[in-house]
């Protein structure tokens, strides 16, 4: 048992010396081999992980979360140098991984498939989970992320905290409040965990209410307000040391959310997410673990233009998705092979309507998503082979079957307008394959290379969308039921040099994209939306490519001072044509951090180069470069076992007026913003 536990669990060294406890307690506390202990005090997590290639089990959440306890999920993700975000307002930013946005990547919460209900991508699912409920984010690139589904850019799986079984501490929790100046924002959060010997219950919640923010120079940016709450509950039960049963529920509701870059705001955005997981960890034998999960979720979303002036026709656009699914996972280990097998499947329905209310005239109605059912089943297989102490190889393969069908006859009739027959089900088979090789070159240097082939199915908008207005290029988008799957041949490489006080990591990626799905203008068609530029149909572009890389440096010249710098660059192009739209320019974030046992003070400089590689067909405009300065500090007061933590900082210290290239509508970012957060944990 002891030996196995060592094999399975990450080695944990905490300031409170939890490591001296028994293995069984380890297990109790963790409850899952995929989890890492999150102590409420500063915990130093040193994973001796099994990742082949770039490590995906860095405690990114906690590290960045500690900078600002009230960061939103998207802001945390953006700290990853290969993730950028598309902003349409001040809420629910859409993550972009390796230059690819949400249609091209897998976004999952605890491995659960959840689909946003907004046809205009106003609600990426990252907006439905909060950092105070999040333990880690596993980011995998390209084909290597195929455990969570077929995608091109990779996978982002957000793992939630869940309840913690820790008999030594019956009650633990946290309560906090925070304020920020630029948008007169107020945040509140709490967490409470109750643990018995064999079971535990946890609940947490967040409430946020923000007004319009002020951009650099003081201009108030209208329609950037929002209000939301998020609550979650989790229970864990361990009938034996080898079995874990876990239940999770997340509810998230946002109201009156402004989207300055769009012609409409959001009346409400709601999600209900349920998951039930069973894990078994045998003590001996070939099987290391197996896990069964079933889940269900609903997302509903409705837009609102009643607060806007000069609205030609008032309209609403309610949408909803409903998903049920499950997976079975097992890990086998024999000799030098560690095999992971996952069987997964889901059923999902998406429907979005649009009703326009002209004055003194009949209502106009259409289905922007014509009630589409998706049935999906996949199999994933991975063999991680320890070739030698210094050489590791991992081979991944995934096969996925997807069936989509329009359920509403109204939608079938709509599509007939464009001579498209959507009355029959559409079948697709998706194939993903990749191999990663990692070599420990010397004590301090390791390098890895991944090569893969991956495919993705079109999104519902790309396949069945009906006059979905895109405010970025001002076109109405219409799907194409027979559009081909998008494919990519891809390589990812990295090298890392690591000493006790310094680290250099450099990665690069290249995607050759085939049948890249993009909107193509059709001049013969008349736009539906008033003042729109025209109509675009989904089309396969024969070839495009995306390449880029990042460089991360960190150095501690003395024990108390940490210098770090993260740079990233992405380049995307249609072969023989224009640049791909919405590609972030070169970006660098550098910081000096003065570390103290009880906190830190940090000066951060965020800079981006100008982006002049633009695609005018998509209404893209050049963006000037910028640099902004942020100051952050954190300090905690211990009160025995309890503590009070203060976070404070000033972002955009020089009140610079700037915008990031991925911000829609030319809207400037937040100006000088002071924040102060206080939390009490026990």
């Amino acid at each position: 048992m002891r030996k196995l536990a060592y094999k399975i669990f990450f080695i944990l060294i905490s300031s409170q010396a939890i490591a001296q406890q028994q293995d069984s307690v380890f297990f109790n506390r963790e409850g899952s081999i995929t989890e890492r202990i999150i102590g409420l005090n500063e915990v130093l997590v040193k994973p001796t992980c099994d990742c082949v290639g770039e490590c995906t089990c860095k405690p990114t959440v906690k590290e960045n979360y500690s900078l600002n306890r009230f960061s939103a999920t998207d802001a945390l993700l953006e700290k990853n140098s290969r993730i950028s975000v598309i902003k349409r307002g001040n809420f629910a930013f859409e993550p972009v991984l390796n230059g690819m946005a949400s249609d091209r990547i897998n976004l999952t919460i605890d491995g659960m498939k959840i689909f946003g209900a907004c046809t205009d991508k106003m609600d990426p699912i990252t907006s439905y989970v909060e950092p105070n409920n999040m333990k880690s984010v596993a980011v995998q690139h390209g084909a290597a992320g195929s455990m969570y589904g077929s995608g091109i850019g990779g996978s982002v799986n957000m793992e939630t905290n869940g309840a913690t079984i820790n008999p030594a501490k019956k009650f633990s929790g946290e309560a906090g409040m925070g304020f920020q100046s630029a948008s007169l924002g107020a945040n509140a959060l709490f967490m409470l965990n109750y643990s018995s010997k064999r079971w535990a219950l946890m609940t947490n919640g967040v409430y946020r209410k923000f007004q319009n923010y002020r951009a650099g120079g003081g201009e108030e940016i209208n329609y950037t307000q929002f209000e939301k709450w998020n609550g979650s509950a989790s229970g864990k039960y361990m009938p034996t040391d080898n079995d874990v049963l876990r239940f999770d529920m997340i509810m998230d509701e946002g109201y009156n959310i402004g989207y300055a870059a769009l012609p409409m705001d959001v009346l409400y955005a709601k999600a209900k997410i349920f998951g039930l997981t069973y894990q078994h960890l045998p003590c001996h034998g070939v099987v290391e673990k197996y896990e069964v999960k079933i889940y269900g979720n609903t997302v509903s979303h409705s837009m609102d233009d009643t607060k806007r002036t000069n609205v030609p026709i008032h309209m609403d656009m309610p949408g909803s998705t409903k998903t049920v699914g499950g997976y079975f996972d097992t890990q086998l280990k024999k000799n030098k092979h560690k095999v992971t097998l996952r069987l997964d499947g889901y059923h999902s329905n998406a429907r979005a309507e649009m009703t326009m209310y002209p004055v003194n005239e009949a209502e106009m109605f259409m289905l922007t998503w014509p009630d589409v059912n998706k049935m999906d089943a996949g199999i994933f297989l991975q063999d991680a082979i320890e070739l030698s102490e210094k050489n590791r190889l991992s081979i991944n393969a995934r096969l996925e079957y997807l069936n989509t069908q329009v359920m509403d006859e109204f939608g079938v009739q709509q599509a007939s307008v464009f001579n498209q027959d959507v009355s029959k089900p559409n079948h697709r088979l998706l194939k993903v394959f990749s191999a990663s090789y990692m070599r420990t070159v010397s004590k301090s240097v390791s390098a890895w290379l991944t090569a893969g082939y991956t495919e993705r199915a079109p999104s519902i908008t790309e396949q069945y969308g009906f006059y979905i207005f895109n405010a970025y290029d001002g076109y109405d988008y219409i799907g194409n039921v027979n559009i081909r799957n998008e494919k990519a041949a891809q390589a990812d490489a990295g090298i890392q040099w690591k000493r006790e006080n310094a680290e250099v990591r450099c990665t690069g990626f290249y995607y050759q994209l085939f049948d890249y799905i993009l909107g193509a203008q059709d001049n013969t068609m008349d736009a539906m939306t008033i003042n729109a530029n025209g109509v675009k149909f989904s089309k396969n572009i024969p070839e495009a490519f995306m390449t880029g890389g990042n460089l991360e440096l960190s150095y501690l010249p003395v024990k108390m001072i940490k210098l770090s710098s993260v740079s990233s660059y992405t380049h995307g192009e249609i072969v023989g044509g224009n640049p791909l739209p919405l590609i972030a320019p070169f970006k660098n974030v550098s910081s000096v951090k003065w570390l103290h046992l009880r906190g830190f003070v940090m000066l951060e400089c965020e800079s981006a180069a100008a982006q002049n590689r633009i695609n005018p067909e998509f209404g893209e405009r050049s963006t000037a470069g910028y640099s902004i300065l942020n100051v952050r500090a954190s300090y905690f007061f211990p009160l025995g076992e309890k503590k009070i933590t203060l976070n404070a900082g000033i972002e955009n210290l020089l009140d610079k007026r700037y915008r990031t290239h991925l911000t829609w509508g030319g809207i400037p970012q937040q100006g000088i913003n002071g924040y102060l957060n206080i939390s009490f944990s026990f």
Partner: protein
Amino acid sequence: MKTHIQFLIAGTILLVSLFTSCKKDNDDNTNNPNTEDLVLAGQAYTNQGSILVKVYGEDSLYSAYSKLYIELRDSATNNLINDAEITLLPQMPMMGHAAPFENPASTTAIEGLFPCAVVFQMPGTTGWVLDIHVKELAGNKEGDVSIPVVVNTPALVRTKVITALNGTDKIIISYLEPSSPEVGINDFEITLHKKETMMSFPAVENYTVEIEPEMPSMGHDSPNNVNPTHTGNGHYEGKVNFTMTGEWYINLRIMNGSEAVDTTSYFVVTF
């Protein structure tokens, strides 16, 4: 268990016999055409020949292209007359004008009724009269009726009298389809008639018609429409696409060869 089966068999026999007997009734009773979904517009006995003439519409009559169904009976025997020659003349005697019409295509009734059509180009609670000449072929009896009918104003304009762009011709444009519009592809049909004299409205058979659907409040059209072409008797048929529900204008462009007849008329469709 046994009794259950017995009941079941008995019940089945009963049901089957009920249905078959009903069907038989219908087959036998050719004396009663099915006018359940029709609305009686008026009836009268012929001046000679003793024939009862009943005129049905698909609804109350409106100023529009109106399909009519005529039922004829021998007033002595009350038997249905299935073979007859019917000649219409709808008119407004007080105003001294007639209307475009289509006589029954055949002298044989279809399920006891003679389908025909009239374009009432204007409404009138009084004033409209359907003059009908009936010639019963079996018994060779003849007679005339004059049935006054009420013609209502429809919710949406379905027939228009326009002056052609040449300044002289009067054209009557009537909307037939789509009568129950849906999102997607719909059959489109209009009729064109020319006012030759106050009493003569022949069908126009050699014009070309182009259509463009438009949502007036949005300003957009719809793709993949098929312009109507002449299919006979002044009827022009094509296809119209609606991308959403709401109020649509179907704009018309009517040409006589290279000469524009009308470029501004439209029909409103709301659903």
